């Protein structure tokens, strides 16, 4: 005899958690969509009443204003699209310089905080505690209004080495003007890099086969210096230096870093370095002392112990928060709006928005740029994290 057990009848009932989940989700989605539609509808009416035509057509219009610093050529008759590009490039420039300087300073201070030298240790602690507790915008304003703008004018500028001048107009420095020998020089540098790659591969192979070490670093350095130097000897100097000269009331020639850029990079560097220092410190401290002892007992000398045992393990802890600091630096570069350095926010979301009145489009473009930057950095980060993550067994 067959014993039939029939499943209980499925009925739609609110006491079924699945049904409730569905219902709840549907209600939420409908509410969000309705809210979005309501806002969209309001915006449409408002735009109509104000006579603003939406769309990205305004990007083709001529801007009609000058920009203090542009990395690519720009005239007043250029379009808003080009203004956007200039703002983006300036943002990237500040971020790039800031990331490099902040990393250097942050690593130095972070290592100093671990130093067994009492005075160095305390100095680094004071640095970190002072600068990470002051708002970055305040630091930017301080450097700009209280330091760079109060410097003497160009005629009384502080000079260094006869070719660097600091004044209220910024930092004037020699410009590298490419000569005919520039291209051969670039090619020689590329050649040197290729040579180094091959040399490293060969050295690694030999090391794995025979165990004989090779001084990769010194050989690489020698290659990197000798090949371009030979090229410069044969073809002549790749660049010639154009020195800034005081003519009348300002400097002529050379490159100039405007005070806004100096204040912004300095403040962001100092601020971010304080955070990076803490990250570096905790990263190095996270490697247990047993690792050092184990490496030493295997016969590794202090140098290789640091390079091959401590640093790789510390980096695993350091890198993820480090990238989020880089991201913060990129986002904080938008604080330039406080001093009028022409980057994304102050140039595009400030000046262009005021001129065109295309609030929605301009803000949307600005936000998507930052979103794109942060998403790409976090994707890169996740990929790197996966690559170096401990493989646990």
């Amino acid at each position, binding site marked *: 005899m067959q014993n039939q057990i029939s499943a209980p009848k499925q009925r739609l009932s609110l006491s079924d958690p699945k049904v409730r989940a569905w219902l709840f*989700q549907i209600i*939420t989605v409908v509410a969000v969509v309705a809210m979005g539609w309501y806002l969209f509808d*309001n915006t449409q009416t408002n*735009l109509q009443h104000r006579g603003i035509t939406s769309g990205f057509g305004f990007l083709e219009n001529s801007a009609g204003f000058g920009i203090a610093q542009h990395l690519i050529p720009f005239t007043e008759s250029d379009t808003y699209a080009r203004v956007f590009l200039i703002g983006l490039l300036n943002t990237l420039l500040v971020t790039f310089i800031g990331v490099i300087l902040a990393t250097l300073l942050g690593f130095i201070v972070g290592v100093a905080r671990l130093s067994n030298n009492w005075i160095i240790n305390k100095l680094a602690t004071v640095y970190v505690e002072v600068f990470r*507790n002051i708002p970055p*915008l305040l630091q930017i304003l301080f450097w700009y209004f209280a330091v760079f703008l109060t410097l003497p004018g160009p005629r009384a500028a502080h000079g260094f080495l006869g070719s660097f001048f600091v004044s209220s107009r910024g930092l004037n420095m020699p410009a590298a003007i490419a000569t005919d020998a520039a291209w051969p020089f670039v090619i020689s540098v590329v050649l040197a890099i290729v040579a180094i790659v091959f040399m490293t591969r060969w050295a690694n192979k030999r090391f794995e086969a025979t165990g004989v070490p090779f001084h990769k670093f010194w050989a690489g350095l020698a290659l990197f210096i000798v090949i371009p130097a030979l090229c410069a000897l044969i073809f002549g100097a790749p660049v010639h230096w154009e020195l800034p000269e005081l003519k009348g009331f300002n400097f002529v020639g050379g490159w100039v870093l405007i005070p806004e850029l100096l204040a912004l990079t300095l403040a962001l560097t100092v601020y971010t370095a304080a955070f990076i220092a803490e990250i570096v410190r905790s990263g190095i401290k996270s490697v247990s002392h047993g690792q050092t002892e184990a490496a030493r007992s295997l016969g590794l000398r202090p140098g290789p112990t640091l390079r091959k045992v401590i640093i790789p393990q510390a980096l695993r802890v350091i890198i993820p928060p480090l990238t989020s600091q880089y991201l913060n630096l990129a986002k904080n570069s938008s604080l330039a709006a406080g001093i009028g350095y022409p980057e994304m926010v102050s140039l595009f979301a400030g000046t262009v928005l005021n001129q065109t009145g295309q609030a929605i489009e301009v803000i949307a473009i600005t936000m998507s740029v930052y979103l794109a930057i942060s998403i790409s950095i976090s994707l890169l980060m996740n990929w790197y994290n996966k690559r170096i993550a401990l493989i646990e067994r």
Partner: protein
Amino acid sequence: MTSHTFKPDMPPPSKVFGPVAWMRQNLFSSWINTLLTLFAIYLIWLVVPPLLSWAIFDANWVGTTRADCTKAGACWVFIEQRFGQFMYGYYPQELRWRVDLTVWLAIIGVAPLFIKAMPRKAIYGLSFLFIYPIVAYILLHGGVFDLVNVPTSQWGGLMLTLVIATVGIAGALPLGVILALGRRSEMPAIRVMCVTFIEFWRGVPLITVLFMSSVMLPLFLPEGMNFDKLLRALIGVILFQSAYVAEVVRGGMQAIPKGQYEAAAAMGLGYWRRMGLVILPQALKMVIPGLVNTVIALFKDTSLVIIIGLFDLLNSVKQAAADPKWLGMATEGYVFAALVFWIFCFGMSRYSMHLERKLDTGHKR
């Protein structure tokens, strides 16, 4: 019978104990350390004496106008003269007692929470949390009970900074907890919406959010309806900060062992009770230090409202430094503002470290 007397103890070897040994160990242990020590002393000598003489010994402390600043150092007269503006902005002089009262009420109201033996802390805390904002709003804004109305456009200085920071965190906390729950939810639609929301706000700088709330929010609202400038900024700050709070809370929820979730479910608790009675109390306690760090970040970020023209502490200083009567006082002004911000942020970070030690009840295994 002769009694044996001990010889007196020898002094400790000076190579191991005492200031000389300490210096040998901590300052001059190797030639690199000696060099570093000398370099550090040189740095300190370069920075500290001029700074001290500027800020204290050569500074001008008394006077009423710029002409009274005759010495070479800092002109603190400027700060003394403009102190009211830095603290209260353009809040009417005769009504500033209301701001003071609000602050005192907050201090007196919060103080009992720090007394260990206090009974019914939770009930007291919650009722304070609900009653105080209403009282504070009535006191600051006025317009009822014979209190003269002070429009928010007159608010400013440190008071505005504190208002934005406290309202910001008070609004961001509940929203952040809800977002964190949503992100950990098993319903895909909810999860996707919460993740999008969080990642969007975390991906953009606060400055663009403030720009958005000041130029786009009026477009979103029905015709004729308009928000106060401060309220618009607050909405932006709350939305922005809630995403960060959500991530901190999520971190805490992930750190709770899975057994806790399973045990709560095995007890037959529904979702909300599972979260409200078992998971969140543990998770929130664990992330208190992280939340304090978020508050510090928010406090520093309040200075950005300068961009949309609100007169917080930093903007008050900037305006005062641009006053023709006090030209060239930018350094003093910014140093003062930096000091105020620093005291708040440093105090909070120390408090968060203290909490971290106090609340460490052994979840790290």
